[in-house]
């Protein structure tokens, strides 16, 4: 077997090796990487910096993959020299490794512009996983960060640093952000969007020096001005790593020169990726690497004839909430320009058409149909008939139509180069039904991830047992699935509804998403969020249930349905004093005072001297009980005592939807525990804990969560389920839908049977929320704003 030595353990090198492995084995492969990691997705570093992904989530090839393919992986070894006559490479560890074929995939490095003081402590590039980790370590609230460079990478770094808590300024030499991808108008939209996110943008500034004693203190511009900084990221561009190419005597211009077969000027040396120059172009994006790798694999394994003819350049900014896409040559002379601009929504589209064909496109604010443009660019199709619909796709009758319009040869995943035909074949031949299976099987969707929705659509249209991993979005204002959104809010440390709407939504919100977001923030931050009452339904602003005539109903907490003569007297007095039109015993073993005016609520609560029963909110309602062993001759457990304890433990907390509970002392089930969200059923010597029951719009018998011996154990098991439901259910999803959706086995596995660490986490977060929870009716004495319960009083005498 011949010896293939690969220098560079990055995306380009390993994508090429993956292609080589598809042919008959003819190489013993050794891979050198100067980073100490296995191959990871460099494109996703910005997601790691922004806390959206963990470092191990961006690994492409695991150690196991290298082992399985018998690849000798040498990480942390930098190849410093090549001897093309002896056919050896020399490592910085002194090793000399012979090769029959050498593959240079050395990539590129951050270009450091001529700025004084780049050696100061606190100056970083943003190129590797180690850079990223350093940046995360050094950033945080109070850090003034300056990013030099307003290109793709610089902006992604800026947003990431900001998410980490830094105050961020982007300093850009040119007059337009991302000037290689955007025209002036597009750049201006982007500036506005970045500044709305809170990133300061300085254009047309040439950085002269970085000042400071040992550590960075200030960034100085050529015009004499400057900004204070204690962290500087240089993202001013990249330069191909061509040193080894030079040492090997290859033809090198800006990059190592390769021909269409991906051969260098030495027949035994090949090169791929960002270190090469092909037809005068050095690529810095991910898609070309894969295309080059395929051709190179064919050439190096002797399957000649494959040709690489270049790649349509396309770039997509990966900042959540900031959609920017650019492809092709939108500035080509002699092209017709078609533009659309909506300053209110921050949407800008520009399409350049030359000789009836798409030459280039810029999309800012709405990149949803970027794949359509990519397809036109790749296929160089004549746009004759679609000329009138260039900026917007024709309204599609169903979800399958968009994918139906694509031909089998159309590219779905531009990064890896997977066509619609390949995906359909994978679905039929390899039983692919989910996105994860598709990634595994075809590698589609593993690059920049922008084709995810297209892959989803294709799976939905073709796969017989399609499983939608994507849940429905909350509403059009915040177009994210709830589990995704919870992740985002947590990682981005967002604490107010308005902030979420501004960054991830339409800036406005509606009566559907605002309460949902309010709940989510309260749950995620265990009550330590910025409560915004304007985002709550009126019931949660005044802590009472609005009735058809605009009055409110008041239900005090009567835990376990057990009250006292004293409480009953106070309730009766209140009913008299405020002329309450109706006093009603509810189905929840409580008393409802109906028809109370908003302005009277604080006085009513004060006179009652009882806490809120939360009968108006998506939260803990009540625990219905039977009399149990206290009085009942059949009772086996103290159900009233347990019920009161259960209610005390959970009360005052918010939940995705209302939570009604019951405890019964024996299986006769007098308080109907089997149709409650959480029920405790007393049995001889213990309790059954049941969850997910309902007797409302739906009727569902609760599932058995567990059987335990003591009341304390029953309460503990309930608590695990309760917190699990709070954290994982969608807003307005009752436990009966939630348990049904997940299946009781999964619920058990992730609550009572979960590893101790998981259980501790649930308990800790529950305890934290509980510690912050307060009786809402205390606001009667200390309103959040002076007019919370009041009407306004006119200041003038009317009609003078």
């Amino acid at each position, binding site marked *: 077997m011949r010896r293939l030595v690969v220098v560079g353990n990055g995306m380009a090198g390993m994508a090429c090796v993956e292609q080589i492995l598809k042919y008959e084995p003819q190489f013993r492969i050794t891979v050198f990487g100067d980073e100490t990691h296995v191959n990871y997705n460099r494109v996703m570093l910005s997601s790691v910096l922004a806390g959206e992904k963990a470092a191990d989530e961006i690994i492409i090839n695991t150690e196991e993959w290298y082992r399985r393919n018998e690849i000798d992986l040498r990480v942390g070894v930098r190849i410093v020299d090549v001897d093309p006559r002896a056919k050896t490479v020399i490592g910085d560890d002194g090793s000399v490794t012979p090769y029959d074929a050498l593959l240079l995939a050395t990539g590129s490095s951050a270009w450091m512009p001529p700025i004084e003081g780049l050696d100061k402590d606190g100056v970083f590039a943003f190129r590797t996983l180690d850079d990223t980790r350093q940046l995360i370590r050094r950033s945080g609230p109070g850090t003034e960060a300056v990013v030099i460079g307003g290109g793709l990478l610089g902006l992604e770094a800026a947003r990431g640093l900001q998410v980490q808590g830094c105050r961020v300024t982007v300093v850009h030499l040119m007059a337009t952000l991302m000037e290689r991808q955007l025209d002036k108008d597009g750049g201006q939209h982007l500036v506005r969007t970045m500044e709305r996110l809170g990133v300061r943008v300085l254009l047309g500034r040439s950085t002269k020096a970085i000042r400071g004693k040992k550590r960075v203190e200030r960034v100085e511009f050529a015009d004499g001005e400057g900004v204070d900084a204690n962290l500087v990221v240089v993202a001013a561009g990249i330069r191909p790593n061509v040193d080894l190419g030079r040492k090997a005597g290859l033809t090198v211009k800006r990059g190592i020169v390769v021909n269409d077969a991906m051969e260098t000027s030495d027949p035994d040396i090949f090169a791929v990726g960002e270190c090469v120059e092909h037809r005068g172009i050095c690529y810095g994006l991910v898609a070309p690497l894969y295309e080059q790798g395929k051709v190179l694999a064919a050439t190096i394994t002797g399957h000649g004839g494959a040709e690489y003819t270049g790649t349509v350049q396309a770039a997509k900014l990966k900042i959540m909430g900031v959609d920017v896409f650019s492809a092709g040559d939108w500035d080509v002379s002699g092209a017709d320009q078609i533009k659309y601009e*909506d*300053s*209110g*929504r921050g949407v800008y589209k520009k399409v350049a058409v030359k000789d009836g064909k798409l030459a280039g496109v810029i999309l800012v604010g709405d990149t949803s149909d970027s794949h359509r443009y990519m397809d036109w660019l790749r296929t160089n199709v004549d746009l004759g008939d679609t000329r009138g619909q260039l900026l917007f796709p024709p309204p599609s009758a169903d979800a399958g139509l968009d994918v139906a319009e694509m031909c089998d040869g159309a590219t779905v995943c531009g990064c890896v180069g997977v066509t619609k035909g390949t995906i359909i074949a994978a679905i039929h031949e390899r039983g692919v039904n989910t996105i994860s299976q598709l990634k595994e099987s075809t590698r589609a969707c593993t690059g920049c991830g922008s084709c995810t929705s297209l892959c989803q659509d294709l799976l939905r249209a073709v796969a017989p047992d399609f499983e939608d991993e994507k849940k429905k979005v909350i509403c059009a204002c915040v177009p994210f699935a709830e589990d995704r959104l919870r992740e985002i809010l947590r990682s981005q440390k967002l604490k107010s509804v308005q902030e979420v709407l501004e960054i991830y939504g*339409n*800036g*406005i*919100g*509606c*009566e559907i998403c*605002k*309460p949902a977001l309010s709940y989510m923030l309260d749950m995620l931050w265990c009550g330590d969020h910025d409560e*915004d*009452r*304007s*985002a*709550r*339904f*009126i019931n949660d*602003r005044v802590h009472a249930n*609005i009735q*058809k*005539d*605009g009055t409110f109903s008041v239900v005090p907490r009567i835990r376990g349905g057990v009250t006292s003569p004293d409480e009953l007297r106070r309730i009766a007095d209140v009913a008299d004093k405020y002329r309450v039109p109706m006093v009603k015993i509810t189905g929840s073993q409580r008393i409802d005072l109906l028809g109370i005016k908003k302005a009277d609520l604080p006085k009513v609560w004060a006179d009652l001297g009882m806490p809120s029963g939360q009968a108006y909110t998506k939260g803990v309602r009540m625990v219905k009980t039977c009399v149990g062993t206290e009085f009942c001759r059949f009772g086996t457990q103290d159900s009233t005592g347990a019920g009161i304890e259960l209610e005390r433990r959970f009360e005052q907390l918010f939940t995705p939807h209302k939570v009604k509970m019951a405890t019964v002392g024996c299986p006769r089930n007098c308080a109907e525990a089997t149709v409650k969200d959480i029920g405790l059923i007393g049995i001889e010597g213990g309790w059954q804990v049941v969850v997910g029951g309902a007797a409302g719009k739906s009727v569902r018998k609760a599932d058995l969560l567990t059987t335990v011996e003591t009341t304390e154990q029953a309460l503990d098991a309930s608590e695990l389920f309760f917190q699990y439901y709070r954290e994982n259910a969608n807003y307005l999803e009752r436990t009966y839908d939630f348990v049904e959706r997940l299946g009781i086995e999964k619920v058990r596995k992730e609550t009572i049977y979960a590893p101790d660490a998981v259980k501790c986490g649930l308990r800790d977060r529950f305890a934290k929320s509980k510690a912050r929870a307060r009786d809402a009716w205390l606001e009667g004495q200390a309103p959040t*704003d*002076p*007019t919370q319960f*009041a*009407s*306004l*009083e*006119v*200041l*003038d005498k*009317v*009609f003078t």
Partner: protein
Amino acid sequence: MTEAVRSVRLPPSHEASADQNWVRVATCDQIPPRQGRSVSIGDRELAIFNLGPSTELGAGDRFFATDNRCPHKGGPLCDGIVTGVSAVCPLHAWKINLTDGRVERPQVASEHCVATYAVRVDEGVIAVSVPR
């Protein structure tokens, strides 16, 4: 929300006409952003809204006044969730545009409009113009 921008009408001239009267109803800080409050003027009940700072209306708080009755079943509009330049009635989620009183949802005949009143703010005091 360009649509909203277009429908914003400028309030009538500040001089009270013969049959209109400016009534001062509250100070700005009495109505939190994106909330409404009711006020009785004679036998009318009005809802005064603070739409808060927003992209479509500019940086400062903006105030609008309507009748405090939903044209559907009379729900108190002041208690609705504010969304952009509209409020959603707390009873059955009818959506009312606060700048012109139009029912945005559901689609109903135009006579189901809510009366709106011109608002002006002088030195932090909100005044509405109501018919004599």
